[in-house]
């Protein structure tokens, strides 16, 4: 197992190196001149040239590439053009917000999806199954911004139950008397609508995967064995069918966690959630190259590492899999 993980880590490093190279090429092919927004029209051509030389953009392309690699390896991703702050600092601020929202969302919808999928498969063909399946199909095919706006309109605007955007209320966080609990509650309160959106969008996928996997499992011979042993239906469902059925669901949960880091741009934008997805879109639209580059690299690393985590987790859930 250790050997396998080490092998995979080496692979990940190689792939990251390739991604770094592709990013380098991509950003030099991209339209738009990054220097243009820094160069003041009042500057003399000499000043402009000096600025370009300072940025190293007058050097031959391979020198730029080596400098770029060296910087990436030492964790120097430069300063954001827009914020003027180190890129790592911005990412460090945004990333936890994204992780908080999306891992909560994915885990909640996975837990519900697995439980309901189990229920649907167990009651195949009955009303419970029909309602759950139809509900999953409908919610999973909704257009996310539409759903998000609908929730904001109904629960945020019409009923005025929840805040319509942001992550914190200034009056709570600026008040020196607010305790940690109150602050946490404030964040949770802001999270309800975006979390609701993510939950409604995603539980259906897990439910359907779990349901079909469970139906396959229920045909297996060991289910007959379990029944013959005189186990209760509940024991058969929870100890024999479900542990075999949720293996494929684990894969899909792991991959959604990975892709939610960037795939959450829509949700984050609609709810003005200060996360990395929204920052990435913003960075690209603003030609904020250092920030965009680092964000892409982050997304790639998260996808690679999640894949590894899923593979390792699989070995724990399914004893037949050994590396």
């Amino acid at each position, binding site marked *: 197992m250790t050997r396998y993980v080490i092998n995979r880590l080496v692979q990940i490093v190689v792939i990251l190196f390739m991604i770094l190279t592709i990013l380098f090429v991509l950003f030099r092919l991209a339209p738009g001149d990054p220097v243009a927004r820094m160069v003041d029209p009042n500057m003399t051509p000499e000043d402009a040239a000096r600025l370009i030389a300072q940025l190293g953009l007058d050097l031959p392309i391979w020198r730029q590439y080596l400098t770029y690699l060296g910087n990436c390896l030492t964790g120097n991703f430069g300063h954001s053009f827009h914020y003027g702050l180190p890129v790592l600092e911005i990412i460090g601020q945004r990333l936890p917000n994204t992780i908080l929202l999306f891992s909560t969302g994915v885990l909640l919808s996975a837990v519900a999806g697995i439980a309901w999928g189990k229920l649907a498969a167990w009651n195949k063909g009955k009303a419970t199954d029909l309602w759950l399946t139809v509900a999953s199909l409908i919610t999973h095919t909704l257009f996310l911004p539409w759903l998000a706006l609908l929730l904001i309109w109904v629960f945020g605007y019409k009923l005025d139950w929840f805040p319509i955007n942001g992550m914190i209320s200034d009056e709570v966080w600026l008040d020196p008397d607010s305790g940690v609990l109150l602050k946490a509650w404030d964040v949770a309160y802001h999270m309800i609508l975006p979390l609701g959106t993510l939950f409604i969008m995603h539980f259906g996928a897990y439910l359907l995967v779990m349901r079909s996997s469970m139906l396959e499992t229920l045909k297996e011979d*060991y289910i*007959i*064995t*379990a029944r013959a*042993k005189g186990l209760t239906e509940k024991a058969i469902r929870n100890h024999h069918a479900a542990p*075999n059925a949720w293996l494929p669901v684990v894969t899909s949960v792991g991959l959604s966690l990975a892709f939610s880091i960037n795939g959450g741009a829509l949700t984050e934008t609609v709810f003005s959630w200060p996360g990395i997805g929204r920052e990435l879109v913003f960075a690209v639209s603003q030609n904020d190259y250092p920030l965009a580059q680092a964000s892409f690299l982050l997304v790639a690393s998260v996808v690679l590492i999640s894949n590894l985590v899923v593979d390792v987790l699989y070995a724990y859930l399914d004893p*037949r899999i050994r590396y």
Partner: protein
Amino acid sequence: MALLEVNHLSIGYQTAKGLLRAVDDVSFAVDAGQSLGLVGESGCGKTTIGMALMGLLPPNGSIVGGNVVLDGQDLSGLDEADLRQRRWRDIAMIFQAAMNALNPVQRVGEQIVEAILTHKPELEREEALHQVEGLYQLVGLPVGRMHDFPHQYSGGMKQRAVIAMALALNPKVIIADEPTTALDVIVQDQILKETKELQKEFNIAIIFISHDISIVSEVCEMIGVMYAGQMVERGTTREVLGQPRHPYTQALLNSFPALGGPRRPLRPIPGEPPLLIGRRFGCRFCDRCPVPASSCKLEPPELVQVGETHFVRCDNV
């Protein structure tokens, strides 16, 4: 009165094309320590009988006639909760291990512990584990392998584990459904011998389901030959193999090689069994029978007694 009596049992499956009578008017009895072999080709209803004895027919299957009496109690009258408590404790089953009878993500010993604790919830886990150790020794499995997963076992070991599981609660009856079909002949022979010894030791009645009449004849004192849902011939192994009276039994014996005796060409049985949906007239074997009488097509033959314990469902005897 025998330990297990099956009286005029009929079982139907509800299908899109109508009721399929998988088992039709089957009767037999087995005593403690005895074994009965149910023989016949695939689809003849032998596994369906096994499942009905366990109370495990699929949702579209049901007993449409007759009953099953174990130890004087009619099992068909029991509700699901009672039936569940009796499963494995009274009637256990040896499955064909090659067919994934063990849960792949649970440790083998754990699966046996589970059977014990389900029926004896008062036991401590330690005690149940200890019993499993005993069972492993009984079936010749190394105790150290208790905590392995099924995929780490060889075919023969899995089969032994499945046998250990069947013995866990000291059942009165064990149904062995094709228990050695997937094993090579050497392992098959060992396991059959050991099963036989265990049967004697614990005085268990075994119903041995197989398509292989030669294996059944080695293991069982009594044989019931099934064809298209009916038991066409039944008697002691000596009676059925010594003087096979039904043309199907004769054909079945001719389609297997005999170890002793003169060499002779094997004769397969031409044709295939009839569909079991809808009304049927006459004898079910009629179309494949080498010696049909004129009456066969009209009236279904009755079960006729031809020896002390020998019964045949054929008009020609």
